[in-house]
């Protein structure tokens, strides 16, 4: 058990689906070989298939404390890191060849469902939901690994995979109910979000948090009673874990989304939220309705000129107030290690095996 738990609250009312977090994570962590289609952070449009495709149907986690069987996602479920045929399309004359992914046309990608949503027009609805590893209090992946390669750090509760011990058996992929573990087919290791450990250790907010222009993510220790996480999760009770039924006790929490009012059959406004409550309950459990009411009450207080600590916390006028103790500036600390400075030292595999063969630029 960890002494304290670092946690995150993600505000779905502020998330704009821009994927800056995805890119910040990608450029910091998964630029290496075998990681082309790997997104430790992703933003899905919900409702939707999600990433990996239909992950919510793949099981895992616990039920009544018993580990549940899960399905291991196939590589293609995560979407491909397709390459584009730059040379043919750009430099060999106009109309020669369209710039497009090499090989078969992609049929899936991490953001394939962008803005697709659900509902019948004009009662269409959707929202954006960023996801990372939940750094669960009871990690199903850790329990499932026969090599003991997955551990939960005592000092901050971050769940890490020791690549020296990992043999790529991939039980963790099946066990994780959130399907947030990836398999690197080049190195043969399971890999996942490390909660920007080298940044966190130096008091710098995670890349996905600090680089988020929507100011969506709150950071801190769950136990820190003055921090925003504790306030939102335990005091105001508006931040909820995703799919609590899996019993892993996730440490990433979500502020559920408000939505424009719904129309009746004649198109008249009804005053009700258009996102069906049953759908939100299927994601966040039965507490989501009361949480939304508390958020609406906060807005009503503001409109009436009454104070609202909840709204002030959610707004966080000062950017750094989002990040609890992690307010150091990455430019000003001695070094910002995001890429490869982790122990044990990981050497990427020889570039030899990744070279495409002669003439292998297409198909």
């Amino acid at each position, binding site marked *: 058990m960890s002494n304290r738990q670092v946690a995150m609250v993600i505000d779905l009312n502020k998330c704009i689906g821009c994927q800056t977090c995805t890119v910040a994570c990608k450029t910091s962590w998964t*630029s*290496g*070989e075998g990681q*082309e289609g790997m997104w430790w952070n992703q933003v899905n449009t919900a409702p939707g298939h999600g990433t990996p495709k239909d992950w919510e149907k793949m099981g895992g986690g616990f039920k009544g404390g018993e580990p549940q069987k899960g399905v291991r996602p196939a590589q293609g479920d995560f979407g491909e*890191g397709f*390459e584009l045929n730059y*040379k043919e399309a750009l*430099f*060999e004359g106009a109309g020669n060849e369209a710039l497009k992914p090499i090989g078969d046309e992609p049929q899936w990608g991490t953001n394939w469902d962008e803005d697709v949503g659900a509902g019948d027009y004009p009662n269409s609805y959707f929202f954006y939901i960023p996801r990372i590893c939940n750094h669960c209090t009871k990690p199903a992946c850790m329990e499932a690994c026969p090599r003991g390669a997955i551990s939960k750090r005592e000092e901050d509760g971050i769940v890490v995979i020791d690549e020296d011990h990992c043999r790529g058996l991939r039980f963790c992929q099946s066990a994780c109910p959130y399907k947030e573990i990836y398999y690197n087919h080049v190195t043969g290791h399971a890999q996942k979000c490390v909660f920007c450990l080298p940044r966190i250790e130096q008091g710098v907010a995670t890349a996905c948090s600090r680089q988020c222009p929507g100011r969506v993510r709150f950071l801190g220790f769950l136990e820190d009673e003055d921090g925003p996480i504790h306030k939102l999760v335990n005091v105001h009770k508006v931040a909820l874990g995703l799919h609590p039924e899996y019993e892993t006790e996730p440490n990433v929490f979500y502020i559920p989304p408000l939505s424009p009012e719904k129309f009746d059959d004649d198109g008249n406004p009804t005053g009700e939220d258009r996102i069906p409550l049953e759908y939100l309950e299927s994601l966040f459990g039965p507490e989501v309705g009361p949480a939304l009411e508390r958020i609406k009450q906060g807005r009503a207080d503001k409109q009436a000129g009454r104070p609202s600590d909840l709204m002030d916390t959610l707004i966080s006028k000062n950017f750094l107030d989002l990040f609890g103790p992690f307010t150091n500036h990455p430019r000003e600390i001695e070094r910002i290690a995001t*890429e*490869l400075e982790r122990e044990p030292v990981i050497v*990427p595999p*020889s*570039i*030899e095996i*990744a*070279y*495409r*063969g*002669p*003439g292998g630029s297409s198909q």
Partner: protein
Amino acid sequence: MTPLERSAVYGGFAAAFRTADGGADVLDEAVIPPPSKDAARAFMAAFDPSISKTAVSLHASAHLERDQTDLYQELIRWYDHFGLKRRDGGELPDHLSVMLEFLQFLTAQENANAADAAAVASLHAAQADFVTRQVLPLVDTVIGKLETADPRYHALPGALRAFLDDELAVLGR
């Protein structure tokens, strides 16, 4: 060959993969034909994919499904370990000629440290690892994809491959 001669040959190859007429003053004409009259055009036709359909890039990243800067970082770690820094405005670190310059340097350093067995062992290990891990795969890819008609640019990667084979044999790989 002495380390100094090997260094000169690396330098010759580096120059030959940098510009059309590079390396002609160093490399043996019996192995590598001298530049033709229209060398500049032929060089680009062979190695510059931005202007020729059939050209093969000398940048390793062009052949890899790996983020360029991730590869740059690996190469810069190599160069940095031996005290080298990229010259402002120089070629990008994954170009074949830059890799060969690095080997030109390592062999020159071997020459200067010939009396220090430990130093020579370090340099030999580095040369062998670098050639195996970084240079040979690129050279083989270039050879595999090359479609030039010009005999010089046809011969050049082949000669380099032969030289590297000799090198690895000398280095005990």
